[in-house]
């Protein structure tokens, strides 16, 4: 399709703050399953019909369990996967098929914070070299400028005094410091979008908040757009305005974070919220209500609503047959669920408790 993205974004006059930074239209990320290497067996439908917009400076959280397709969605935004169908539009241009130079330019526009900092940092490179690589690759030839940018990035993530860290190898740093290096590397090319894939799940509870605050500070200072991917709802409040709940390759609920916490609509969201523990001694006295079973295989997902085999409000003959509609029972609160077809605006209580 279109591959006419200019290497220099400043030369594109159509871009202003009102255009969404990223627009995802009808996105399908499917992976082909093959037998003996060539005969087609089926598709893993990791992301199925996802639509959303991400504005400049906005932070979105995507919440879901492992295997729900959130990482596939993220990797597609980074163009590590190609969409099977649909479009990813960056500042008004379709980028789904970028190649060569254009692709390199696009990747300099998005930063990636990996989940496991130790795994994401090359063990044989000192911090200085880890941070200079993206600059060298993206043609910052002046050595002095590189030094300056490295120092600036390290100061920004509070790896100070900088000289103490420049020559250290990843294994000499604590988990929190490693994650700071990963963040510095993601930020060093001054991207417009930061994709953070469970950035704190491998860290100790005591430093999680520190890293989340750092990400929020960077977001505010640089007017960054952030995609924050997590399975932990209690950290979401920290720095995202909107939240998407994903289940088995589909977005099932999209709304503002406070609205989601106070008025969750989709049965899966409700299950996630009940499943999240808060420290309270009374927890030990009763069992948690957890939906039975496990997330479905994405090769052969259930018909109709993909959550129906585990749902406490399952409507036979409807949920298992027809795909749930895209409803907006309250302004700005989108849910894909048959329960809200009749204009209901809150989650129905379950009688048998």
């Amino acid at each position, binding site marked *: 399709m279109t591959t006419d993205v200019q290497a220099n974004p400043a030369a594109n006059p159509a871009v202003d703050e009102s255009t969404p930074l990223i627009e995802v239209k009808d996105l399908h990320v499917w992976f082909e399953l093959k037998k003996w290497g060539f005969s087609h067996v089926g598709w893993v439908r990791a992301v199925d019909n996802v639509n959303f917009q991400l504005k400049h400076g906005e932070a979105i959280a995507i919440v879901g369990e492992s295997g729900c397709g959130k990482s596939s969605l993220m990797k597609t935004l980074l163009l590590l996967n190609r969409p099977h169908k649909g479009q990813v539009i960056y500042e008004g241009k379709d980028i789904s098929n970028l190649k060569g130079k254009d692709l390199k330019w696009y990747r300099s526009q998005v930063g990636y914070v990996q989940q496991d900092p130790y795994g994401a940092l090359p063990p044989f490179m000192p911090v200085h070299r880890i941070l200079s690589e993206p600059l060298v690759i993206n043609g910052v030839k002046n050595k002095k400028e590189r030094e300056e940018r490295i120092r600036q990035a390290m100061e920004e993530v509070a790896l100070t005094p900088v000289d103490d860290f420049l020559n250290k190898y990843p294994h000499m740093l604590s988990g929190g410091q490693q994650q700071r290096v990963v963040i510095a590397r993601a930020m060093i090319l001054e991207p417009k979008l930061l994709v953070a894939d469970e950035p704190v799940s491998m860290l100790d*509870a*005591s430093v*999680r*908040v520190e890293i989340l605050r750092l990400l929020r500070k960077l977001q505010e200072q640089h007017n960054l757009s952030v995609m924050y991917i997590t399975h*932990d709802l209690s950290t979401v409040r920290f720095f995202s305005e909107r939240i998407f709940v994903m289940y088995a390759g589909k977005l099932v609920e999209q709304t503002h974070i406070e609205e989601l916490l106070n008025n969750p609509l989709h049965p899966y969201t409700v299950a996630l919220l009940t499943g999240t523990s808060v420290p*309270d*001694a009374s927890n030990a006295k009763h069992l948690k209500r957890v939906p039975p079973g*496990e997330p479905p295989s994405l090769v052969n997902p259930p018909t109709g609503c993909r959550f129906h085999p585990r749902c406490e409000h399952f409507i036979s003959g409807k949920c298992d047959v027809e795909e749930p509609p895209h409803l907006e029972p309250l302004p700005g609160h989108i849910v894909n669920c048959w329960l809200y077809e009749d204009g209901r605006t809150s989650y129905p209580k379950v009688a048998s408790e």
Partner: protein
Amino acid sequence: MNDNTLLKLEDLVLYFKTSRGEVQAVDHVNLELHKNKAVVILGESGCGKSSMAKAILRLLPRNVGQYHGKVLLEDFDVMSLSDEEFRRQVRWVKMSMVPQAAMNALNPVLRAGEQVAEPAMIHLGMDKEEALDLARQMFENVGVPVDFLTRYPFELSGGMRQRVAIAMALITKPQLIVLDEPTSALDLLTQANIMNVLKTIKWETGTSYILITHDIATSSELADEVAVMYAGQIVEINDAESFFQEPLHPYSQRLMASVPRLYGDEEPDFIPGRPPSLLNPPTGCRFADRCHLRFDKCDEEPPTFIVDGHPVKCWLYEKDHQAVESAATGTGDAS
């Protein structure tokens, strides 16, 4: 000690030898666990939590420097047993363990059912058929479909593998199960599910647990008592009710404040700095450098004070509270 005590640790010490000196991973730990109760060991990574589990079950690496103290299991000091006696009489018979990342601890070339049955064959002297029957029961107890008996670990999801590891720890019907981070690698709903399984087992069979974790929120799902560990030492032991409302030690307070909550306006806080190296821990209070309530006295090592019946290792409670005679300063006669 009363009849209800299942396990009592007295001045338990486990140091590791390294080329740079001794790592004081478990430093004079005292702890008591009652029957059918669960005690949670909380702390950041590198505080010696897992080493304590290893010290209790005598699953030691080769580089042990010092290992002494008392491990009293129903009044009997199991430290007096030889390694072989310990293996035959205690490990897996009286107490078993679900190791950290249990999902990777399973043998990849054995079917799940065979692995679960193995301890029953070795320790209960059952033949294979009986043991497999028992394994089937265990699978039902932990909520694994029975036809998974013949599957290999790679065919199971993470949550299912974790359940298999729990079934394996359960099969010999031990009185105590040590759980080392049983849910940290799992998804939220799977976590909640496993916690439900553990609770049900506790209620139905009267098993006791030692749960080692850094996840405070999840730990509250199981805890009757909470012991907070910092830099190899236990700094606070408290019942769950009071701990989750009002922890006593400043470290516990900071830990509680670092938990993000779903509701409420309180913004969580982090603990600056990181735990000291156990190679050469600071003299005085080990938390002093990171403590927001530090004062002059903290340069000296605090004794353990009894605050409303709860041991707390902090100078803040010196006034009006009785200190326990620290046996740590005496001669460790059990070796």
